[in-house]
């Protein structure tokens, strides 16, 4: 996969590139908006990571310009501003996800994987499958190995998000943002309890646990 990184903070960019290269990504980097926009428009990337406050042309304008020209590359906007209005503005400009600085690398990686996957498999799906797990989005039913599992509406949304991103790491913050639409960090491990409830329901009567817990990072749904 080929990525474009537009980020003016050299140190941040260096670590980001090092980490991403270790994960097997190929990266182009530039440290200002003008060059960034030129590179983004002239080459085909699988995803872009764009800092909001880069010199010459700011991140939001870059994304708006690209989207206006029909560019549908998945984009993450990075920002030092962690205000709700900024988040909304960032997403309205056409970015697929929004990450406030300082973020952890795993958080960025998880989100990057989620948006590249989502872009490819998003088109009007009515059924999701992951190994023996099947989800019908129209009838809102879930089956594991043909056996129906009863889920509450929020548990359904939680599992849906995990299934749409099956095989990739999902952080707690991503779950909070995408399943509950919450932008705060609970001081209690509420998410873990929700996951363990869901896990209990989908693993009941089966040997293999489908939701893995990754220490210090988040969760992953495996087939």
């Amino acid at each position, binding site marked *: 996969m080929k990525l474009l990184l537009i980020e003016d903070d050299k140190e941040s960019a260096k670590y980001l590139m090092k980490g991403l290269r270790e994960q097997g990504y190929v990266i182009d980097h530039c440290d200002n908006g003008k060059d960034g926009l030129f590179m983004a428009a002239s080459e085909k990337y699988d995803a872009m990571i764009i800092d909001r406050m880069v010199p010459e042309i700011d991140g939001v304008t870059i994304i708006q310009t690209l989207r206006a020209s029909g560019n549908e590359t998945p984009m993450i906007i990075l920002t030092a501003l962690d205000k709700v209005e900024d988040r909304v503005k960032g997403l309205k400009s056409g970015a697929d996800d929004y990450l406030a600085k300082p973020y952890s*690398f795993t958080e960025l990686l998880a989100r990057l994987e989620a948006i590249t996957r989502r872009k490819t498999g998003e088109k009007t799906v009515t059924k999701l499958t992951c190994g023996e797990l099947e989800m019908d989005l129209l009838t809102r039913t879930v089956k594991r190995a043909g056996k129906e599992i009863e889920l509450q509406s929020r548990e359904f949304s939680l599992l849906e998000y995990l299934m749409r991103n099956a095989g990739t790491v999902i952080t707690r913050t991503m779950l909070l943002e995408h399943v509950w639409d919450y932008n705060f960090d609970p*001081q*209690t491990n509420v998410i873990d309890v*929700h996951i363990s409830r869901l896990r209990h329901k989908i693993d009941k009567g089966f040997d293999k646990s489908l939701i893995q817990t990754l220490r210090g990072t988040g969760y992953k749904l495996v087939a």
Partner: protein
Amino acid sequence: MESKLARIVKTFTFRLALVYVGLFSLSVITLFAFIYTFEMNYLKGQITDSIRMQYNYLIDEYRQNGSGGLEAHIEKLVAEDSDGNEIYMLVNQKNEKVVGNLNAWPTDAVKDSRFEKEGRWVHFRIEGSHGSNQDIEVKAIVMPISKWRVLLVGQTLQNNGRVEETIVHAFWASLLLTLSMAFVGALIMTRSVIRRINIINRSAHTIMYGNLSTRIPFTSGGDEFDELSSNLNQMLDKIEGLLLTLSQFANNIAHDLRSPLNRIINRLDAGLRTIDNDNPARKILEKNIQDMQGLIGTFNSILKISELEANTEFRSFEPCDLQQIIDNLVEFYEPYAAEKDIGIISFIDNPLVMFGEKNLLTQALANLIDNALKFISENGKITIEAEFHADHTDLIIADNGPGIPQEYREKVFEKFFRLEQSRNTKGNGLGLSLVAAIARIHNATISLEDNHPGLRVRLSFPQIANA
């Protein structure tokens, strides 16, 4: 109304006004004392002169026309004196009446000490005329005019009595009028002073519990109260300026520290990826990342609070339904609470729509529920209910945890303040400060109460009125 009067009576201004009333009454009393003394002396002098004149006239008559002429003249004078103010008496050497309007020689007459050449002044009392049983005082002069005759000429003092009575009546009437007018004046003065002071007090209250940029309003007069207000306002400008500098300083620190923090986390992350799962260094790195994330959380909270405190106006509010926010939060926290054997229930069964920022309101209520969940040990209960008033609606989040002692119920809203009991729990001492800041930008107030046992958090929203 009565309590209002009682409040006025208690004030310093009113007491001052009472002192003023006292002084004013004293001056009225002194004035009347002067008038009284002067008028009475004047009247006495007038009577003395009139008696003397009459006496001299009679003596002249006696000298010219002898005893017979005098007696006839006295009879004539007595007949002419219709109101009985004039007293005449001529007696022989045996004190027997020759002529006059007294029944008998006044044996009880008190002699004045001074003896004038015309005769000796005496005082005595006679029975009142027309059946009135009050004695009338008489002043008179007594003089033997020959070996066989003693003459008494006098006047009653009943006119003096009338004047005296009039002065005393006037005195009481003026004193009463003065006192009542002064009292009413004191009330009016006190009320207007209180009104001016209340304006200042109300502003002070708004400033203390809400908006530091509020200023004390002026009247157009430019009087001493305006001067006080102006001075207080200047003081507030100065304080606000200092606070702003301070919060900008804090903001700058937080901003500047975010970048290095970010790099540290990146490096730790990078380090973590290079080592094996069973390497003992992994635990240390993970712990460091965890602490770093806690630190970042604290920075974010500080910045968020500063942002909320700095930017209280021009927010993009939209209609939010508190019932829906609470229902979602209850659903969100319910599994975690159940695991700790804590019940969490909302009794709000109607939409509570207000203008606000949904994200912030959610965060504030989540913080309060988080707090309750953190401190309740077991068999706990968290209830959320609404209390409707005419001009505001209160949300009450109550728990049966350890509660907060009375003396700390204000302090817990201060940044980084933590109770002894919460030192060991997760958190940064900014949760309630953030809630308070969020409440403030929504014009809501927050207060803590005792739930016997536990804590009741009361969020009062003036926006949701039920009238």
